[in-house]
Every structure is written in structure tokens, then in C-alpha cells.
């Protein structure tokens, strides 16, 4: 999957300052790390790429045959891991993962290997509320990967996690990411640098005063 962004302009409603103004970006298969200070717009960029936010101006294109943000695009192409833990509370870990797989027209059994890879097999049949933060984050990543997405977007996937959990996640991404999948990770966690094919440092092209303003 290739992602291309041109002349992107975006600002949140009620805020005078735009987050992006004539911003350009491109990513291809492999792992791209978006680094930068908190509030510099990394998460916003991921949401724009997925189509969860609509840009004011500019073009976001992908190599998918589905338009960005449409249900078909989200079903078949995108795996998204949010910064906050967004597991379905009433479904077990296994159901959380298999539900996402069935949405992508994959069998429910597609969940099983990811439970194994991310070390969740012992917790497969319990509700997310009984998992630790690290286990929940791993479940969220398993859910995103079980869809076999061509575009995997992860927002601070290891934020607040210990080294062990971070290692499990990093290994899962490095070893199991399909060749054609573009994985974009928004993070300021330097422990993930080792798995990146490309690193985009927002700090290098955004003015310093921008870093001091909370943007999202």
C-alpha cells in the first residue's frame, strides 16, 4: 500500500492555528515511524490518513481501490490502533479480534495465530476489563493485524508499556507484517526505532513554537 499526501491543510474546529498547512507526505510498504513532540500532529496525521478526520484542503490518496475513509476502505485496508485502549468491553479478547477479522471478510479463526504471536492465548476468553494495560494494548494490535490490513496505523502503541510488552509488540510487527503493508507508527518511543524502515521526524520541519502549543 502506498500513501500520498499533498498540500494538506487541516485545523480543528474552534482553533485558529492549523495543524497542517500545505503539508506533504508519502509512505510505502514497510514500517514508517512518525516521531515528534506531543501535540505536534502525529496522531492527527494518522486519523487523516484513515479518513477519521476530513482535511480542509489537500489530497490524501492511497493505492487502494476504495476511497479513503469509506466503510469498505476501513474494512478491507485499514488496521488502526488507538492511543487509548479501544477494545469492545462486552466481547472476549478472542471475539474482539475475530470480529475485526470477519469485518474484513476473513474467517473468525484468523484470530488464533495473532493470539499466539502476541501472547494472548491464556487470556483469549476473558473480557478486556480483566487485562493489564500491556495485555490490552497487545490485544488491540492483534485485532488490527488479524484483518491482514494493507495499511496499519498505530498511535503510540507502546506508550506507557514496559520493555517486555514493547518487545513483544515490536517483534510481532517486525516478523509478521505482510510485505505489501504500509505500517505508520506515531510514537515518541525510541525503543521502536530499531524496527523502522523509515523515520519521519516532525521536529525537524515544524517550528519550535509549534511544539509548545497543544494541537490535538
Amino acid at each position: 500500500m502506498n500513501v500520498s499526501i499533498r498540500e494538506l491543510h487541516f485545523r480543528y474546529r474552534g482553533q485558529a492555528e492549523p495543524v497542517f498547512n500545505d503539508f506533504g507526505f508519502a509512505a510505502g510498504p514497510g514500517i514508517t515511524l512518525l516521531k515528534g513532540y506531543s501535540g505536534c500532529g502525529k496522531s492527527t496525521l494518522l486519523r487523516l490518513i484513515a479518513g477519521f478526520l476530513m482535511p480542509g484542503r489537500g489530497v490524501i490518496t492511497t493505492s487502494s481501490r476504495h476511497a479513503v475513509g469509506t466503510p469498505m476502505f476501513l474494512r478491507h485496508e485499514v488496521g488502526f490502533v488507538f492511543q487509548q485502549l479501544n477494545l469492545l468491553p462486552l466481547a472476549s479478547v478472542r471475539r474482539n479480534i475475530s470480529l475485526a477479522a470477519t469485518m474484513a471478510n476473513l474467517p473468525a479463526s484468523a484470530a488464533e495465530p495473532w493470539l499466539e504471536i502476541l501472547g494472548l492465548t491464556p487470556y483469549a476468553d476473558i473480557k478486556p476489563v480483566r487485562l493489564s494495560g500491556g495485555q490490552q494494548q497487545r490485544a488491540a494490535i492483534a485485532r488490527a493485524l488479524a484483518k491482514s490490513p494493507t495499511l496499519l496505523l498505530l498511535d503510540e502503541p507502546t506508550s506507557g508499556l514496559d520493555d517486555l510488552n514493547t518487545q513483544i509488540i515490536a517483534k510481532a510487527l517486525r516478523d509478521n507484517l505482510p510485505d505489501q503493508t504500509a505500517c505508520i507508527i506515531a510514537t515518541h518511543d525510541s525503543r521502536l526505532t530499531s524496527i523502522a524502515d523509515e523515520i519521519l521526524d516532525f521536529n525537524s520541519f515544524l517550528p519550535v513554537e509549534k511544539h509548545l502549543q497543544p494541537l490535538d
Partner: protein
Amino acid sequence: MRSWTSIPFYLWKNTCNRWIEHPVSPFAKILLPFLLALLGLLVLVLFSQVETQLRDQLAQRDLRTIVVNEVSNPIDAPAMILRSLDEETMWVNLYGREKVTVLRQPLVGATSQQSLGIPILAYSHPLEGLPAEDPLQPGAILLQKNRKAKAPELLNIAKTHFYATPALMPPWLAKQANTTRAVAMPLPIVMPLLRQGFISTTIIELPEASAVRPAEDLLRAYFKSESRNPRIFSAVEILASLQRLAATQALIRTIIFAAIATILALILGNVAMLEYRQDAYLLALLRSFGVSRYQLLAHTLMENLLLVGSGMALAIVAWQPIYLAGSARLAHLGLQKLTAPEVNILDFQILLAAALAGVLLAMLPITLGLRRPIGGLLQ
């Protein structure tokens, strides 16, 4: 489990969980339409009953017939007999002998061994459907709606005994009479009784229904000029009443429809908005998987239709027992007991349509809520 079953399954699980956590919400969604529908049905049933009564009256009457009823008290009776005979001649000249029937009923009735107060009908010329009478020996005929007795029956009329020959009441008279038995007697025999007060009934049959209104106007004008106020009945009046009733009924149905739809829309809309706020995060999460807004809207619609539909169905099933129980209670208090009512199928359809409209209107806030970008909700 495929996506088209797994997502609805999860949504229903979430809904049931919400119902268990906040049972007031589904209870309100059932109770509100139940009470509204019950209220609507009780109002509509009153109209239905009036309509039934009018239609019954209409069925008893010929569309071409006018009936004039007038009571003469004992003081006025001697003069009124003569006036009544003159008027009979006048109506006969105007409409024809065979089209005018005048019956005069004394205020006193006949008694027999079986019954008291049998109405006496005095006729001034041979009545259609009655057996021919021996002009030399005129007598009484006991008219019965269902002929049971075949032998002549001894009647006591003002201390005078008569043998009355039983006969079947002719259909035209059975329609007008409120009694199952009556004694028909020639006018000269009954004349002394009529002088003590009588009720005169004039039945005029017109050639066609369109002639009824002018004839009725003429009769009213005549009696007004005579400073008398007899009761004049015709199907025209009933038809006019039915038309007025239908217009009022249509208005009431519209008001009930609008009221139910508006109340349901406002209250369900508010409840649904609160529930949407509670579920907004989950719905946004499902949308991030690629669940379409329409699927989520369809689920909310189904949920509301299920609850509101249950309330309406409950009202449709329960209203008649509630109505009859209330009616029995009124009878117990000495008020008139109402008969088992019937509701027009259209009224049920109106209530269901109002509920559907209310539910659809209540979807508006959620529809707008689901248009918000997912990125604004999920962090």
C-alpha cells in the same frame, strides 16, 4: 460468524447490557407509547360508538322516509285530534294516500293476562300489511314482531274488553316501533281514549331520497308557523350527523397522530440522544472497523421499533379489557354501562403510523450524531 451477523449480535448484546444497567430507559420506551396509544384508542372508540349508533339509526330508517312525532297533552288533545285529522288530509293531498301513514297512540295502553301497557295504534285507513278487516265488525289486531300466539287474546282497554286477533307486525311498522307488541285499532273505537292525550306519528314516504330535504324543510316551516315543535326524523339528518362526525373524526385522528408522533419524537429523541452519548465511543469504534452509519442507524431504529412496537401492541391488546373494566366500574357507580366497543382498523393503523413517525423523527439527533467524524471521538 460473518460480519453481517457478528456486528448486529454485538450491538444487541450491548443494547441488552444497557437495558439491564438502565432499565428505566426501555421501560419508558414501552410505557410511553402504551399510555399514548391507550389514550388515543379511548378517544377514538367514543367516536366509533357514536358512529355505530348513527349507523344503527340509519339502518332502521328508509332513506326516503320522514317521521313526525308529536305529543298532545290531555288539555290540548280534543282540539289536536281535529287538527291532526286535517293535517293528515293535507299531507295525503300533497304526497298521496299510499305514501302517508298516520298512527295515533293514546297515552293509556292495553293490558292482557301476559303483559301490561301494550301500545295502542289507532289507524284511520287500512294499513299496508295488515289482514283485511270486516267493516261491519271492526276489532283489534294484536301485532307482534315474532308471532307466538295464534288464538285471539283478551285485552283490557280502559275497562272495556276486546278480543284481539294476532298478526305479524308489518316490516315497515316493525322498523319504526320500539315495542315487540302493539294493538292496532280503527280510529273511531279509540277516539275517546285519544281525547285524554295521544302521540301522533306521521310517516311520509317520498318518491326519492333527494326529495326528503325539501319535504323536511316544508314540514319544519309549517310546524313553525303553527308554533308547534314536533320531533321530525329523517335519514337526511342522520346522514348530515354522520358527515359532521366523519369530519370531526378526521380532525381528531389527525390531532392524535400528530400528538403521538410529536411526543414520541421529543421524548424518544431525547432518550436516544442520551443513549447515543453513552454509546458514542463504542459506535465510533465500530465505525473505525468499517461498520457503516446505516447499519448503526438500522440497529437503533430496530431497538426503538421493538420497544415502541411492544408498547403499542400491549395497548392494542389491553385496551378492550381496560375499557370494559372501567365501564363495569361506571355501571357499579350507577352510571351507564358502555357496551363492548369496536375500533375501526384505520384507527389502529393511525396509531401505528404515528408511532413509526415518532420513532423515525427520534432518529434525527442520532443521525446527526453519527455524522461526526470518528477522529473527533476516538483518542
